[in-house]
């Protein structure tokens, strides 16, 4: 689960990582409180809260001098969409006098399957390009959890990357706290970028990201609480992996991520485009299938639906039962063209049930895709 900037910062602050003063604002009424919290002197920066990058370039960050100016700009930002993500909240923060922008991050090194600390003296928006074009400007240290993150490792990185000596202590301190947060919150990603040096020679996390492990939420009640704000997470609670591609016209309902991707590839091969994935592999239930089908039925962008399942753990007779129950509750007929393929455990029973209810059902993948191509022809 990816947290919003303001959520990440609130957590990092608990670990003693310095962050700017600020407040979350969802409408005009709380802007005054943000202004009071920050003070006239360093007011203010308005930052759209969205779970995507490139927000600055898209106009999602504005610097203002006064409360009236902030009130004027607020509706523009709150109304905008950044890469199809609607903005419904802002973080209002103090302005800082930034001398240098650095990068510090923790994630899992996929080669070593171990945590890795990343550090760069050239942080900010273009860090990915820096890392690609100037690999020597990026330092890495792979962490063995039983040994922890030793101070000398951070010091070596700082020295090797040419960080000024006066900052080594602060870098060690913040890296230690970030690693502690990474472990205790069971994060998959923890990032401070830019980690800025201000005029006072101190470091502060101007922007932050934190992604936590969905699988570990059950032992983090306070993170679990945050989940409510994310549609994909509430679907996950019903056993559904949902990915909204935000373009395309075909809705996919499958079991398993690999099968979902294959189906998407086959849809593309046939000349169409998938709109969203729904992977029901994490526990089949009446409620889960019903939620999935309702979502596919109601989302206006979806013109037709492909159901492609090859069941192992999931029994196809159960799937058919749950789907028919759900469709019954929706009024007896699925409101959009729907093509179904069921294969694997108890598939024959499932197919018979769906066919008897009047749906087009395939056994083989080729058959499903042939039917899909026919459907496409008909709609064009």
């Amino acid at each position, binding site marked *: 689960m*990816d947290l919003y900037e303001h959520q990440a910062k609130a957590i990092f602050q608990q670990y003693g990582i310095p962050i700017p003063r600020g407040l979350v604002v969802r409408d005009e009424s709380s802007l005054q409180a943000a202004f009071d919290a920050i003070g006239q002197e360093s007011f203010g920066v308005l930052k759209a809260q969205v779970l*995507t*990058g490139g927000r600055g370039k898209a106009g999602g960050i504005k610097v203002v001098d006064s409360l009236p100016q902030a009130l004027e700009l607020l509706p523009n930002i709150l109304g905008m969409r950044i890469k199809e993500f609607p903005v419904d909240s802002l973080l209002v923060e103090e302005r800082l006098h930034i001398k240098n922008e650095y*990068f510090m*991050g923790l*994630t*899992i*090194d*996929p*080669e070593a*399957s*171990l*945590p890795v600390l*990343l550090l760069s003296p050239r942080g900010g928006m273009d*860090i*990915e390009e820096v*890392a690609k074009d100037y690999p020597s400007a*990026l330092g890495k240290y792979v962490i*063995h*959890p039983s040994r922890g993150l030793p101070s000398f490792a951070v010091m070596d990185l700082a020295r090797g990357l040419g960080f000024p000596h006066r900052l080594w202590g602060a870098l060690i301190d913040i890296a230690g706290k970030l690693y502690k947060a990474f472990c205790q919150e*069971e994060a*998959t*990603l*923890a*990032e401070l*970028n830019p980690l800025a040096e201000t005029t006072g020679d101190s470091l502060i996390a101007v922007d932050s*990201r934190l*992604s936590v*492990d969905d*699988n*570990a939420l*059950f*032992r983090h009640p306070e993170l679990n609480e945050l989940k409510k704000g994310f549609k994909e997470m509430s679907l996950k609670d019903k056993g559904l992996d949902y*990915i909204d*591609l935000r*373009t395309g016209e075909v809705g996919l309902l*499958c*079991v*398993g*991520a*690999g099968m979902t*991707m*294959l189906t*998407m*590839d086959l*849809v*593309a*091969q046939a000349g169409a485009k998938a709109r969203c994935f729904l992977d029901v*592999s*994490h526990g089949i239930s009446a409620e889960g299938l019903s939620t999935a089908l309702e979502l596919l039925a109601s989302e206006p962008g979806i013109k037709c639906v492909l159901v492609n399942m*090859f*069941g*192992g*753990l999931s029994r196809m007779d159960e799937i058919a039962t749950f789907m028919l129950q759900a469709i019954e509750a929706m009024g007896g007929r699925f409101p959009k063209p729907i093509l179904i393929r069921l*294969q*694997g*455990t108890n*598939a024959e029973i499932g197919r018979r049930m769906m066919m008897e209810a009047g749906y087009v059902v395939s056994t083989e*993948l*080729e058959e499903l895709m042939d039917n899909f191509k026919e459907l496409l022809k008909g709609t064009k």
Partner: protein
Amino acid sequence: MSILVDKNTRLVVLGMTGRQGSFHTRLMREEGTNIVAGVVPGKGGQQFEGIPIYDTILQAKLAQDANACVFFVPASAATQGILDAIDAGIEVVSAITDGIPMHDMLLIQEKLKGSRTRVIGPNTSGLITPRQAKLGIMPSMAYKPGPVGVMARSGSLSYEVCYELSKAGLGQSTVVGIGGDRIVGTTFAELVPLFEADAETRAIVMVGEIGGVDEERAALTIKEHCSKPVVAIIAGSSAPPGKAMGHAGAIITQGKGTFESKREALQAAGVKVVRYPREVVQALREAF
């Protein structure tokens, strides 16, 4: 021959009496698997369809000389169970369980060093040597004995691929699902030498997908250590650029993880890379 499991495997089923556990215990037995024990804490001393149940993995290991485990327990219990299996010296652990926290896997990984245990998964469909041993949830109808070693990240896609292979008369030596999680006990790269050393395996199929760098790592191993033909199917070639994993994620993978990156790395290792299951059959026919 085969890798990891065969008719000498003496399997313990964790969570044997649960809904999934009992259903799949029967199916695994039908495949010919030698299931010697179940483990269900609190039910030690009972039996399930003639199979003795124990309270702990160690008891099952001691009483039945078990050498493999398959997990049908929830994530909250699986971590401790896997640590117990390592402690007991179980050789192959098939961790079907989905939802094991990543930081638990870091712990398990460290414990695996210096142990004798190989963990397959978690979040895997398991592994199968057709008609000899099945330690998983895959639909048996998709599999036949034969000369193709299959390793897959996605369970569902591997069913489809194996089903196509079987229909085309290309049976499988062993099929291993490595699991879909970020940290897995056994990677593609670690399976390549096992298939290479297995006399019955004449070709290898890798069922990959976009994301992660496991296919790229395997490409290096294949290039250096594998003399057998390898075919890779990579799903997700049509996916739009992935949702950002943060800069740290992007930096650390450095452009790896895409379909193109995987195809290039694999082709450089002499691997035939395809997109769809039917093409796997075709590529294999050309290779044989």
